């Protein structure tokens, strides 16, 4: 698994991704980590199959006792099915996840980590004084879905929004937006169910200052590509399966 620091000031952001799990037909996922002093947050920690490479990558950067927070954008297995394993190695951690999924996510196995229910209107993750804003993104794609915005770093973790289906060896950032469209078009049309939810999200997110948009699959968008993505997504009809 590759680990890349994407923001490095008073606090740091990392992307942990591009693990090639051969022969298992797993969707490729991006995990993110925010470190602020002795507090570390793992965003969408991933599935069971990724636990060992993820833990190794985390330990390359921080000791385990400094992993204090987990964040799950929604309930899908590629997002959080490793929860039971994290639960056994983290001694004092909280999981920030949508309130409507609490009863479901607990089925993955949760004995030690504290579940912090995020209400439908969002909230804040306080990571040792660093305020990370929880942005509601319901129906994009999950009915209870949340994103995370770091005002200081100008980074938005956007869950499945901005996701692309591509090979594990792909670059970390979009380098040619027009060429990238073909990798994300079907995903957004098919996985995103609501045009109303999409427009509402774009309207709110467009007011934020975003340098890097970080999806859970595929490449990150930076600089002008962030706006290019929002404009492209805005005109895209979604929910095509009905």
């Amino acid at each position: 698994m590759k680990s890349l620091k994407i923001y490095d000031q008073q606090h740091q952001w990392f992307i942990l991704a591009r693990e090639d799990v051969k022969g298992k037909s797993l969707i490729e996922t991006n995990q993110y980590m925010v470190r602020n002093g002795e507090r570390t947050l793992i965003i969408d920690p991933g599935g069971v199959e990724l636990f060992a490479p993820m833990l190794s990558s985390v330990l390359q950067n921080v000791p385990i006792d400094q992993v204090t927070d987990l964040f799950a954008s929604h309930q899908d297995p590629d997002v959080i099915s490793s929860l039971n394993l994290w639960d056994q190695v983290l001694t004092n951690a909280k999981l920030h996840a949508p309130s409507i999924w609490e009863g479901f996510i607990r089925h993955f196995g949760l004995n030690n980590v504290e579940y912090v229910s995020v209400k439908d209107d969002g909230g804040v993750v306080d990571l040792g004084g660093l305020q990370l804003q929880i942005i509601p993104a319901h129906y994009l794609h999950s009915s209870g879905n949340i994103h995370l915005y770091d005002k200081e770093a100008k980074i938005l973790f956007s869950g499945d929004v901005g996701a692309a289906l591509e090979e594990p060896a792909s670059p970390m950032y979009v380098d040619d937006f027009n060429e990238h469209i073909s990798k994300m078009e079907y995903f957004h049309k098919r996985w995103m169910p609501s045009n109303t939810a999409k427009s509402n999200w774009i309207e709110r997110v467009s007011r934020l200052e975003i340098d890097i948009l970080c999806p859970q699959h595929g490449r990150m968008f930076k600089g002008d590509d962030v706006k290019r993505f929002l404009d492209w997504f805005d005109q895209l009809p979604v929910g095509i399966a009905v």
Partner: protein
Amino acid sequence: MSFTASQLECGFGMEQLDANKVVVAASTAAAEISNAGHIAKQLSLVAKNARTVVLRAGDAALGFKVVSDFFVELSTSSIFLVSQVNIVAIELSRGAIECWDANRLSQKLDDVVLRHKEEEIEYFSSIEPSISKGREGTAKLNDDLKHQIKKLSSLVDDIRQQMRAGKVISVISRIEASRAGEFRQALEEMADKVEALTERMIVHIQTAMTQLEEAQVNN
């Protein structure tokens, strides 16, 4: 025969139970014993009917009275044992799943150990207490599981012994039925039913025992 890194490094490779096998064995044993329990309820009805016939027959069926009393007691006691088996089987399944979870974590942590050997992980030492704790926990759960399997096997064996005795008594009951004059046919039919029911129970119990014995055999 092959072992995962966690089995070898936990130091109890040959002694370790296959948790997957135990979950299946416990559930199968519980289902088989539950089937035997349904038959025990039918046996109870047949034995109670026999007791009614015996009361009507009076002195002509005195010998059969002892037999019918025995089968009423046998079915009552079997029904109780079946409920105990179900409780222990559920505990065993839970224990096996806990053990399976612990094994899974151990295997993932072994993978981290291997990755650390290939390329040094800076904060590897911070996870070492979890690795040790995981291995100790797995070993303890494994011991608990063995203890629970023995307990369950012992209960199932108690039922098996009872049913064997029941089968012997069902043969004797036919002799007693033959001395019951006009009630002979009714009591012989009941003796046949009792024998058939005990035989069916023995089949279920034997399957349960086989499952539990196989769960104790290492990979």
